[in-house]
């Protein structure tokens, strides 16, 4: 299956990319997607924090299944306000 990823703030700066797509096996989880991103963008191996995860714009865990998920966002700890 194909999943779209989004990277924000320091994560997109590290990766040098804000979004893209990754093809993964049907039983893949968020953790698998991240592993794929770290291979593609090695700078993501050292983020300085554990990113927050959003599946289709809802906060989700690292072990969430990607089945029926169109978009996964990886978010630094937020700092709005």
């Amino acid at each position: 299956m194909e999943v779209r990823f989004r990277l924000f703030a320091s994560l997109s700066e590290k990766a040098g990319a804000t979004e893209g797509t990754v093809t993964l096996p049907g039983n893949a989880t968020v953790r698998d997607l991240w592993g794929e991103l770290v291979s593609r963008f090695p700078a993501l191996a050292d983020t300085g924090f554990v990113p927050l995860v959003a599946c289709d714009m809802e906060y989700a865990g690292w072990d969430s299944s990607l089945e029926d998920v169109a978009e996964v966002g990886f978010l630094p700890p937020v700092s709005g306000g």
Partner: protein
Amino acid sequence: MIRLQAESIRLEDLVQAVQDDAHGAVAIFLGTVRDHNIGRKVLYLEYEAYTDMAVREMEKIRDLALEKYDVGRIAIAHRSGRLEIGEASVAVVAASAHRAAAMEACRFAIDRLKETVPIWKKEFFEGGEAWIEGAGGPMRPV
């Protein structure tokens, strides 16, 4: 009214949006850009957002606050893009019939906004720039 906007926040518009004759108590929190942070002289800020999700999270905060507190209406506005020192980056406005509920709802909403809404601040200070990374709050996975 929930807004993630590139334009200046106009407080009067927000008050107008929540106030009505039955809800006379209006509590407001306004966050403006400070000229210093952790000892550095700040020049300006840039806010980046996961736009659609940020709006959804602000809507959730509004709905939750309306559920938890006896308030009539809540408005939340957050800026995006570049902000100069002194500009308002965020405003939360809550109106209720009695003041305690409005003040509590306002506080709840701003506290939660800072924990859950996917917006990031980049600080441009004398001698450099840096993304500010929040504490992350209870949503942060370990």
